[in-house]
């Protein structure tokens, strides 16, 4: 009995904490579906609703705006189908006016409006392009380097590995300015190369692959050697097929990383045509700071692909996160 109560309390606490964690997302989505005036009034915090007045006439109901309401008569504007004012300042009897509350009422047009203001389509395409090209680069460089580190003996291996490790430790803000100057010397500022080429190597991925290659049985490689396969042949025909799960996991991590990267593209590009989603979103944040609902729509849209990816691969993501925190 006591154990049951304990468990009940644990579940209750976990639920409360869990709600705190996801409430910002729920609020983001619900706000993205409200009208701006509804948001400003803050009456319905989570469920978007719509309030308006109608005028009951013999010919049917008309949407109106109330200008001035008195006990007997009300001055109104009559609206047309597109909610534009059709007739101004008409005096009608107050008992013909009715307030309507529609709940929930979703304003999907916020997404359309946000898209009209900002070319998110271009940003989206840029992000996809940069993410995928650098992903391919990362996979090739990591696969080759990790194989050498895990399965080959050569002079200076330890030293080179240590060098890689120490480079991983240096945080990006330290070399941001010098990288900017270097890319400037290359004339690479404001180009796709600046966003892709420096990120075609990922030390974390090299580590993941190295760990995996070491876990493969040695006999596999020996047998292939006896059969006279070349090193590259072994890599291509034996190691690659056995590495599909780790490649998938590493790709998900690399994709999330490049999708969310912000500081680098912000600094290295300036032309609007080259903006990636995160940078575009940050400019929209500056330009439309009062248009809360549109900002929320844009934010929702920008995290959607990563959310989908996360839900598809959440088991692997969480499992490998747990592993990376643990030292061997």
């Amino acid at each position: 009995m006591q154990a049951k109560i304990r468990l009940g309390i644990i579940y209750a606490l976990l639920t409360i904490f869990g709600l705190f964690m996801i409430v910002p997302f729920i609020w983001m989505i619900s706000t993205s579906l409200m009208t701006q005036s509804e948001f400003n009034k803050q009456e319905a915090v989570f469920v978007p609703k719509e309030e308006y007045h109608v005028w009951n006439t013999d010919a049917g109901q008309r949407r109106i705006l109330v200008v001035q309401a008195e006990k007997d008569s009300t001055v109104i504007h009559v609206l047309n189908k597109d909610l534009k004012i059709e007739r101004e300042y008409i005096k009608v009897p107050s008992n013909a006016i009715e307030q309507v509350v529609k709940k929930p009422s979703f304003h999907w047009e916020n997404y359309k409006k946000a898209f009209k203001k900002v070319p998110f389509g271009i940003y989206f395409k840029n992000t996809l392009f940069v993410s995928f090209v650098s992903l391919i680069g990362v996979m090739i460089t990591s696969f080759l380097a990790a194989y050498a580190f895990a399965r080959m003996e050569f002079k200076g291996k330890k030293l080179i590995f240590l060098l890689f490790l120490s480079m991983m430790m240096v945080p990006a803000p330290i070399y941001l300015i010098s990288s900017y100057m270097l890319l400037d010397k290359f004339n690479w500022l404001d180009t796709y190369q600046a966003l892709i080429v420096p990120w075609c190597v990922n030390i974390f991925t090299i580590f993941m692959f190295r760990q995996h290659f070491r876990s493969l049985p040695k006999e596999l490689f020996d047998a292939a050697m006896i059969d006279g396969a070349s090193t590259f042949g072994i890599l291509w025909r034996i190691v690659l097929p056995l590495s599909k799960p780790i490649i998938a996991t590493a790709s998900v991590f690399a994709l999330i990383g490049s999708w969310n990267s912000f500081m680098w593209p912000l600094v290295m590009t300036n032309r609007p045509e080259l903006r990636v989603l995160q940078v575009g979103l940050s400019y929209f944040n500056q330009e439309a700071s009062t248009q809360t609902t549109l900002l929320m729509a844009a934010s929702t849209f920008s995290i959607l692909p990563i959310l989908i990816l996360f839900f598809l691969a959440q088991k692997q993501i969480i499992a490998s996160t747990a592993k990376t925190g643990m030292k061997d």
Partner: protein
Amino acid sequence: MKTQWKISPYLYILPAFALLFLFRMIPVAMSLVIGFFEWGITGSGTFIGLKNYIAMFKDEVFWKSLSNTVWFVVLVVPASIILPLIFANLLNQITKLKSLFRIMYFLPYVTSLVAVSIVWKIIFSEQAGLANSFLGLFGIAPLGWLAESTGIFKLIFGSGWPDWLGGPSLALCAISIMTIWKSLGYNTILYLAGLQNISKVYYEAADIDGASKFRQFWNITLPLVSPTTFYVLIMTTISSFQAFSQVYLMTDKGGPLNSTKLIVYYIYERGFDALDMGYASAVALFLFIILLILTIIQMRGEKKVFY
């Protein structure tokens, strides 16, 4: 396989090495010396010795950004250890719905800092923000949050409290709350992995001895997850020193009154707004030294066996 001089291993490493050399090692090496030059945005620099560093130590905004950053670390790091430890302990005791809760906690970690910064900026907005609506439920008057430059101690203890003891601004606290929320799930997963490595035998023995759950947590769990705690402590400290996007997106240039200007934002501002790249690089080198010391502590500590 015998160790012999072969060309092929180097060919395998070459692509990764070449990229790292060009885009990581050279910039890192450059960042060590740029601070000794005066640079415009392009062209060649003039050697000015320690002038940037001397200017930096006289620069009030630099010290302000450094003290902001230290406060930020003090606010973020303890919460990023304690809350995940609690969450992980609770999660470790249940079987049903475990993965659902894990997903809920982990969600903020995978979403982009840009998008969630925008969302939290609106959550903290004075007029219609969720934070003030929430406080309203308890009858608390709306707060200024990101617009409030007054230190929290002064806010708590009233206007008689001395200014210099004011502490971090409420705006910086708001940014800290968002930062804690963002990485909570990640640390929880690390702790959960740490907890699952603890053998059940210890708890069974403690149960037989009649030790309370709290004593078990204090005397068994806490010491045995100390490697994870150490890792989370250092890693969160290092990453807190690097916070940038939150400030860029949630505040107006580190305002109000520079009270949210963190050091990496200041580097960005001096380098790319004021176009004083030498100076910005001097500040970056200062930060590098702090982070290097933390990294060395981490590597030393890791070698020690805790229990």
